[in-house]
């Protein structure tokens, strides 16, 4: 991370917890990362590992109660978002930092026209007349390749298909040309063929606008095809961070490795399919009763005494490939 001027986002030791009646959920525990201009950072992990909460923490939209950001800093273009007042933060949301949500079906207000929802986003941050904002909205819809954008702008969300709604969400998020775009599983709810279209679109636009992108997904395939750098989260913690190539070539954390092995592959010509998948035994631990040591230890084949007693620090294993594992060195041997 040489050139700090190029940094759009710098998250340091972010901690977000939920106070619930079953206890304290450390949804995001001591997570740090950076995003450069034009760069795509993917966050992967299984359900409940804290991906969405991380994203919401960046936006300062963690529902309170029960959630609360309890530590760390989030610097967007040098400003610590966590230190801003709510009013100042509002000026930044949707303007410098934007977010696309997982559910295109429910994330648009059903009783407001698509165009008007984009117009609102524009006018909140730019001093424009409705007309000008309207033009921008239509322009944005065209940009996300919605046919007949002017007509679609006057339609309501239910009149659009899932893919189109997600495009409209993207148009809304990008309307103010933010420095950072967070896409929280933007394609999970969509069909594969549509998913490919949307991902390609996001990447195109990102390139065009030079936006930093945080792409959250649980699909390692998506990661491989879109990101430059990857964070793997497990039980609220960052367990591994690396460039895509490095991660896929040689994962340093047994969890990452297990994950990769457990995904069936589309049989490629000539490659015989394996009979059984490699499975990671057990289940993801509850975020309340996290073990003292490594949260993955109970499911880990490599686990040793130390893993249960002591949480492994994130260590650089070369070339900025970070992993939090006592036995990262042995990972390659095992599987």
């Amino acid at each position, binding site marked *: 991370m040489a050139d700090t001027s190029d940094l759009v986002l710098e998250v340091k030791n972010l901690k977000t917890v939920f106070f619930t009646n079953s206890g304290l959920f450390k949804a995001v525990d001591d997570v740090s990362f950076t995003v450069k201009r034009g760069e795509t950072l993917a966050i992967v992990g299984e359900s409940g590992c804290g991906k969405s909460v991380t994203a919401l923490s960046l936006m300062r939209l963690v529902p309170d109660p029960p959630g609360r950001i309890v530590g760390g800093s989030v610097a967007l273009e040098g400003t610590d978002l966590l230190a801003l007042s709510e009013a100042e933060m509002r000026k930044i949301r949707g303007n410098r930092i934007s977010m696309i949500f997982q559910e295109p079906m429910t*994330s648009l*207000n059903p009783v407001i026209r698509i165009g008007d929802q984009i117009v609102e986003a524009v006018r909140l941050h730019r001093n424009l007349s409705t007309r000008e904002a309207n033009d921008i909205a239509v322009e944005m819809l065209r940009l996300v390749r919605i046919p007949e954008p002017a007509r679609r702008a006057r339609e309501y969300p239910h009149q659009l298909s899932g893919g189109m709604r997600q495009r409209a969400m993207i148009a809304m*998020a990008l309307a103010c040309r933010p420095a950072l775009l967070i896409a929280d599983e933007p394609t999970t709810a969509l069909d594969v063929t549509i998913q490919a279209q949307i991902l390609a679109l996001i990447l195109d636009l990102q390139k065009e606008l030079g936006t930093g992108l945080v792409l959250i997904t649980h699909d390692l395939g998506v990661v491989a095809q879109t990101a430059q750098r990857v964070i793997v989260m497990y039980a609220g913690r960052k367990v591994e961070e690396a460039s895509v190539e490095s991660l896929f070539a040689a994962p340093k954390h047994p969890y990452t490795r297990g994950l990769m092995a457990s995904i069936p592959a589309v049989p490629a010509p000539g490659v015989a399919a394996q009979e059984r998948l490699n499975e990671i035994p057990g289940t993801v631990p509850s975020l309340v009763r996290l073990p003292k040591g490594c949260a993955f230890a109970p499911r880990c084949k490599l686990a040793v005494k130390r893993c249960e007693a002591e949480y492994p620090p994130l260590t650089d294993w070369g070339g900025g490939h970070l992993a939090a594992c006592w036995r990262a060195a042995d990972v390659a041997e095992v599987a």
Partner: protein
Amino acid sequence: MFAYLVRRLFLMLVTLFGISIVIFFLLRIVPGNIVDILFAAAGYVDPADKVDLEKQLGIDQPLVVQYLHWIGGLLHGDLGYSYVSEKPALQEILPRIPITARLAGLALLFSASIGIPLGVISAVKQGSRIDYALRVMSLSGLSLPSFWLGLLVLTASVAMFGQMPIFNPNPQSFGEAFATYCIPAMVVGFRSSALTMRITRSSMLEVLRQDYIRTARAKGASDAAVNYHHALKNAILPVITVIGIEAAFLIGGLIVTETVFNIPGVARFLVEAIRWRDYPIVQNLVMFIAVVVVFANFIVDMLYAVFDPRIRYTD
């Protein structure tokens, strides 16, 4: 849309037809009829006179014949004659309608204009002191018998002002008109405003949890914009339904309030007519109420379509 309207109208007619049967036969199984009551006042029954009178009123005929006669008349706009006053039923019912309508309209207005904003506040401030206070207040509103509230208002106004807001058919001044309609309307509306508030609150809470609210916040919208522009627009839908249903309930509430405030509207008239077993009045009045209720539901459905673009009655 047109097809939908026709279908709705058809269903409404089916419902009304059902109501006509229910009310007609329910009334006839009520023991005792107008003749009994007339004679009850006299303290004796002369069987010959009774037969004469029953014949005169046509209630000696088979029920089906009576029913067909009634419905036949209804279709021609002939509602028959009141047994008691012997005037055309229409002439008895019609002048009372505007009174009740005004009362009900004002009550609804009151209910909505108090209930909705308070409901929004209570939802937005969920869990705060204001929320608690508003909820307790609305629940107390729901817990007061309405005749009791009405009597309290009357008693208090006599005690405090030596005056009472009793019905005045020809109010001379604004003050009189206010007393004539607004005070009773507020008494009725108070209860339904509590309901409106509750439903607004829970509907708002539901909506505030929705994804699109988060989207709006992510755009940088202010709390006010989120609550009133994004949330209320969606939350208002169930509120409309409840207000629509309330319109039907109001008539029940009005029975009591019209009695307490001595307002010569249709609601109280209905009670009197039931007491007198004045079939033509009861039947037609109930049909009228049913038409209003059924129409209110219809309007609610239409309003739904207005407020919710997802609903288009195209089929």
